């Protein structure tokens, strides 16, 4: 078989496998969007297609997207999610960027111990922390009178604490790829150490910072376990909130699917807006230049 033909067949095979995986990934998403347009009855009886009206037209239940805001307090959950995830992203990025830069550039006593400890925290499954943190929150409030459980800042604190170590490790790699000579040149040009960071290192690490920030936002957006335990009815996030569509007296899977679709939208928009940075960020440092 000629070389070009063999290469072409291999290319087609690879594409076929990729498409199969893509279908596997997208199928549930498609199912979610499709189900969000069905009636509650159709879902309950397990009808695959849409039900037909008397005239034989397919009935698309667009009003699910209206009802979802009324059935449960979805607006509140959306606001809570935006506040909690946004604040988590902000605090995690500020602290991890500074720490990552320091670890990649400065030698100080305990630097190795510090970075290894950071790595070690990632080895313990998050669920192991759940009960200790819950008890800590309750005891802290008992002892000081300051409410923690059920507040914004309580869950933001926990999320930030979880994401900072991971972010430090990722961002440290980004800072390490910035040539030292750039910073030396800046020092000679008149920069103080902080100015070197601010004017040179930080702008050059932006793709990495954006990629890491989005990862944090997405992961926090999807997080259910801690949010369920540590928030209350005023501060609950979308993953916690949309469970309420399924209750004792009614199962509104149609509205839940609509809410899930709406909850996915900000993430999709964010991703497409910053896609360029994410791809660049994920590959930066792989090749020079």
């Amino acid at each position, binding site marked *: 078989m000629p070389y070009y033909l063999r290469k072409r067949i291999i290319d087609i095979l690879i594409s076929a496998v990729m498409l199969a995986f893509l279908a596997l990934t997208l199928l549930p998403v498609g199912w979610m969007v499709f189900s969000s347009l069905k009636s509650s009855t159709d879902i309950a009886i397990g009808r695959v297609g849409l039900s037909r009206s008397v005239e034989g037209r397919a009935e698309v239940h667009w009003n699910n997207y209206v009802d979802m805001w009324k059935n449960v307090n979805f607006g509140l959950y959306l606001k809570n999610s935006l506040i909690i995830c946004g604040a988590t992203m902000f605090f995690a990025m500020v602290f991890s960027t500074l720490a990552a830069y320091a670890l990649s550039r400065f030698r100080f006593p305990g630097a190795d111990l510090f970075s290894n400890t950071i790595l070690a925290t990632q080895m313990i499954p998050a669920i192991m922390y759940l009960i200790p943190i819950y008890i800590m929150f309750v005891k802290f409030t008992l002892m000081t009178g300051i409410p923690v459980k059920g507040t914004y800042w309580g869950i933001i604190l926990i999320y930030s604490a979880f994401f900072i170590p991971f972010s430090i490790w990722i961002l440290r790699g980004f800072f390490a790829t910035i040539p030292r000579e750039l910073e030396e040149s800046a020092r000679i*040009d008149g920069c103080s150490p902080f100015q070197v960071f601010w004017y040179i290192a930080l702008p050059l690490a932006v793709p990495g910072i954006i990629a890491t920030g989005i990862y944090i936002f997405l992961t926090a957006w999807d997080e259910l376990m801690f949010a369920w335990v540590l928030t209350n009815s005023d501060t609950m996030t979308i993953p916690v909130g949309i469970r309420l569509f399924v209750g004792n007296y009614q199962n509104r899977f149609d509205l839940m699917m609509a809410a899930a679709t709406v909850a996915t939208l900000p993430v999709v928009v964010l991703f497409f807006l910053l896609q360029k940075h994410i791809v660049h960020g994920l590959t930066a440092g792989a090749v020079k230049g």
Partner: protein
Amino acid sequence: MARVLLKNVTKMFDDVAAVKDVNLAIKDKEFVVLVGPSGCGKTTTLRMIAGLEEISRGEIYIGDRLVNEVPPKDRNIAMVFQSYALYPHMKVYDNMAFGLKLRGESKKEIDTRVREAAEILGLTVYLDRLPKQLSGGQRQRVALGRAIVRHPQVFLMDEPLSNLDAKLRVQMRAQLQRIHKQLEATIVYVTHDQVEAMTLGQKVAVILNGELQQVDAPLTVYERPTNRFVAGFLGSPPMNFFKGQVRKKEGKYFFECEGFKFEVPADVAGQLASYVDREVSFGIRPEDIWDIPSSGWIDQKFLIETRVEFRELMGSETFVYVKAGPLALTGRVGAMADPQPGSKFGLVFNLRKIHFFDPETQKAII
């Protein structure tokens, strides 16, 4: 502009001395080239002047100020890096203006200086491009421009031309000399390229193994190397060295080795007096070994019969690698001479240009 003074400067990396006890006085407005093979400590020396490397021992003065404890930004120096180190996220204009902005110069002053430097370097049309949109030569000039706009006391250059192609390098050498004259700048320039050292420097400082070997005008370093290291480092192909004995017969001095024996010219022979019947190292550069037809003008010569091993035809000249008995040597002969490999070939030493070195101390005798 200012002078630079290095007093007993030493740099230790753990237990290894990268720079040993360097004493160097660079005058105001002088162009000094630090030259040596890679890893010899020349870049470390430059980085210590810049303040990027701590000094283990010794003192460095810029102007009349001791700068050991002064951070780089307060030394009033500018540095051009081998990799150019342009800020990739800033346009050419901002790259050049960055240092001035940090120093709080007025917008108008910055603009004047950046445009003036761009004019000198022919960069005016590239001012709003990003570094990645420039060619290697253009980037190099931006790096130079960034140094010029600062009007520093001292320019430090770390192999600034080594990433350019051969033709561009020749152009930039000329441009550097012009800039030096135009700005009346003190320049410390590091290179491993001896052509750059010879052509650019008013003074050449040869560094080997972290030690300063010789500081002199380029031609002096070339023609009167203080020791065997310097003699062997400068010149391409390198100087030929032969081990042999000094003999004295009837008031005349001879150099004798396994392959040949010749009489040392009387005007320099006296310096060999204390080496009679002792071993010495004899050195002669390839360009002081001639083919017979073009050697007519030489008044003190020694003819040696050799066998050609191989040759390199350079067009303007020919390097011939020959054997004289057991000894291998290199000569540079005219392009007209046509040494055939395997054939016999007569070569002439110009005895006005010979060197002798003490084999123990490696110091030059003649």
